[in-house]
């Protein structure tokens, strides 16, 4: 039981890293960013390109590359559709995602490549009678630090405060002197940093990367956000942990014949939860604006 909780915590942390990156952009500009998966994918390939360097340098470079790509995406694609309807934004991100995937496919080919990251964290340690993977510890620890760091950033720095204001009411914030370009670019930058760190941990867990690898994580992220409740960052993290818990517990307690259907049950369960709480677990019903 406790072992399962540790697993759920580790998977949930990874989910939360991804979900927060997506939720941040959603709360500020109403964008559901499909291309977030491609940021993770680029992070994975960047990891491969810089693999020869010491790990700390590699990690910094990966984060820098992904943040750069996120800012480029904002400038090239999303700036010109800012303020359009949610559907248009979603479709733009979807087109961008296909585009980036096609580009990487052109240069790296469709075959899976393997990468060995953080190999030294493969071992487990004993914590209070449980065997816990060092990698799991690293994921949970880094996620906790990042979430706290984000919370601090949003409360204590001028840019963070402006981002919160923009999330509350973009037009009003602009009228009060918040610079839209700065805030949106800042959000993309933070989102990119989260994607890069998620990529490092994801590759460390799975060891393989393909041009299409971003889709799985980004779907998990979407589901986590909708499950938790749209428009609130901590709710997205909550959704990520609930999703992981649901999935790990079903894995552990389903009879063996049913185990293969775990994901079907997880996603069906999510549809049912949404049926009773259409705004997510922690969401508030929004007032309809006419």
């Amino acid at each position, binding site marked *: 039981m406790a072992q399962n909780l540790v697993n759920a915590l580790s998977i949930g942390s990874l989910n939360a890293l991804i979900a927060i990156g997506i939720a941040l952009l959603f709360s500020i500009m109403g964008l559901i960013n499909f291309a977030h998966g491609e940021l993770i994918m680029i992070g994975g390939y960047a990891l491969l390109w810089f693999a020869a360097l010491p790990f700390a340098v590699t990690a910094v470079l990966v984060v820098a590359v992904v943040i750069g790509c996120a800012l480029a995406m904002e400038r090239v694609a999303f700036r010109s559709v800012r303020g359009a*309807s949610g559907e248009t934004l979603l*479709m733009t991100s979807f087109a961008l995602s296909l585009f980036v995937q096609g*580009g*990487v496919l052109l240069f790296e080919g469709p075959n899976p490549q393997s990468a060995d990251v953080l190999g030294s964290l493969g071992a487990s340690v004993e914590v209070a009678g449980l065997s816990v993977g060092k990698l799991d510890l690293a994921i949970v620890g880094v996620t906790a630090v990042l979430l706290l760091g984000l919370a601090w950033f949003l409360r204590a720095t001028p840019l963070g405060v402006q981002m919160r204001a923009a999330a*509350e009411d973009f037009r009003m914030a602009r009228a009060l002197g918040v610079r839209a370009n700065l805030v949106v670019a800042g959000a993309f930058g933070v989102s990119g940093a989260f994607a890069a760190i998620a990529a490092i941990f994801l590759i460390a867990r799975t060891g393989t990367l393909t041009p299409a690898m971003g889709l799985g994580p980004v779907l998990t992220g979407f589901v986590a956000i909708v499950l938790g409740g*749209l428009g609130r960052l901590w709710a997205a993290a909550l959704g990520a942990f609930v999703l992981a818990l649901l999935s790990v517990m079903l894995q552990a307690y389903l009879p063996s014949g049913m185990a293969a259907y775990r994901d079907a049950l997880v996603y069906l369960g999510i549809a049912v939860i949404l049926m009773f709480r259409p*705004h997510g677990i922690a969401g508030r019903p*929004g007032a309809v604006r*006419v």
Partner: protein
Amino acid sequence: MTNQRTSVFARCAPGVICTLLVLAVSGLALTGSETTQRTATQMLVMGVIAVGTYIFVGNSGVLSFGHVMFVAVGAYATALMTIPHNLKQALLPALPGWLAELEFGLPEALLISGLLSLLVGVVFSLLILRLDGMAAGIASLALLISVNVVISNWDAVTRGAQGIVGIPADLTVGATVPWLIGAIAVALAYQLSRSGFRLRASREDPVAAAALGVRIRRDRSIAFVISAFVCGVGGGLYAHFLGALTPGDVYLQLTLLTLLMLIVGGIRSLSGAVIGTVFISVLAELLRRIEAGGELGPLELPPHPGVQQLILALTLMLTLLLRPGGITAGRELGFSLLGRRRGPHTRPTADPAGSG
């Protein structure tokens, strides 16, 4: 909106013109090589799926990422009903007896598959249609994933990830055209029905429509279920086009392709769905040939995997930036300009963050 008082002839014009377009392209393809004909068949099958998806997405304005689940249900159901009896016994020994005995001709199998998808649609409409906008799209995606997991693991019936082989791959251009015309007719009939008008009213302005007494959820359910039926039939055709069916064939890639066709063509009109299908099919085929390499006239091309996706994505992006409503921008083809004139940006959208 199309004026109620316009003649029957004018109201059916989009359907007639779409049909003529489909007939013209198919006729053109029939003069081509076998590869061209196969591409044309694929285009027609995709047309049925795209029109099926349009019935719900286009009229309701709710983006669904899950419609391929009906395609999946239809494809597997048709495959199980049309594979020759003895082959089926060899392939799927664990199949329940009554299912092993079934053997239908293609048309009956397609209609039964459509009805099966319709039933699935009825159940899922209860789950999804309470939700709005984005949440509905994500929830339908969750259901698509569920359906795919079941298909990938139900070895006794679907052979899991190995997939079903030996489906008669007998689909020709001539055999597919009537189904696409049928799909267009169903879509047009729904669009011109009372429920279709009410649903489009709710798409333009949900609050005003609800105030006028439109029960949005009921009309969405009606469109959803009809749409499920057409997509199920499309799925059956798709199985017969492919000849071998694996769970990956009816999953995210097909979802993305369908949405690509609808968005580039113009998601808010039937003509847009048909034009998008034709346009993207032709473009994709050209790109596929470039991607495969070889000689293109005097040019010698090396193979380039990824080019097709790159250009298709670019097409989609340019469409969204330069012509957000798609090629038709919400207008229907007509003999005169009967089009709906409202662009996609004119309606008020509910604030996604819910503040206000």
